[in-house]
């Protein structure tokens, strides 16, 4: 990853890919009058609505940011713009994309129960354990 541009591009492509896959699957089911369609799943429907809202929200934010850059004025004798608004690109919608995209597999695979929370807790515990071990071995060397 690295830069903000790369991360933003990744999140945008994740959102667009997800919308495209869902559109394809739903269109396939509609065109072929399929017996099973992913729209029959309530989680999928709410997820699709959320992710589409995130993507359109990002588009609106981007337009607003671009317009604010165009409208920026710099007073004579001043070195900087009057506000930092034009340089604050809102990626809150994209962060929501990440949260929403993770939420669907969590519900589809692990269900609504606490299983996934235990998974995350254990995973975090492993990370903390490795970090502590790393610190110890760095300071004391291999015992």
């Amino acid at each position: 990853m690295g830069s903000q541009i790369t991360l933003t591009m990744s999140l945008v492509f994740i959102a667009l890919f997800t919308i495209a896959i869902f559109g394809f699957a739903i269109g396939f089911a509609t065109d072929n009058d399929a017996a099973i369609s992913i729209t029959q799943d309530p989680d999928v429907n709410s997820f699709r609505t959320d992710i589409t809202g995130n993507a359109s929200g990002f588009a609106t934010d981007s337009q607003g940011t671009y317009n604010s850059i165009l409208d920026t004025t710099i007073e004579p004798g001043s070195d900087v713009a009057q506000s930092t608004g034009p340089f604050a690109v809102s990626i809150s919608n994209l962060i929501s994309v990440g949260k929403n995209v993770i939420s669907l597999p969590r519900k589809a695979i692990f269900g609504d129960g606490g299983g996934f929370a235990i998974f995350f807790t254990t995973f975090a515990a492993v990370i903390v354990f490795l970090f502590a071990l790393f610190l110890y071995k760095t300071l004391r060397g291999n015992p």
Partner: protein
Amino acid sequence: MGYLYELPNATTGVDTILSQTTTSFPGFVPLILFFIFAVVFIGGITRQKIRTGTADYSAWAIIASMATLLPALLFSVSAGFIRLDWLVIVVSLTVLSAIWFFLDRRSSEV
């Protein structure tokens, strides 16, 4: 000689064979989908490692996911092949592979 299950009757269509096999053994379709995913994923990684020395795991994951999603959608056309939760899981895994793929790219790549 007796059989463990009734032999499929294909007089109404060849897909009846698949349908009746699924009825006798509900794990038939998931195993087929897992087989496709595993063959593409492991085969692609192995072959790429032999050819170039390194393997692009995330790219092969998304290719294998797409290769699994298409038969899963085909299975969804008729009732009795694939359950809704399996189809949602396949779609979810495709999305997860996409997350892995896009976050794994360097800025100079796709």
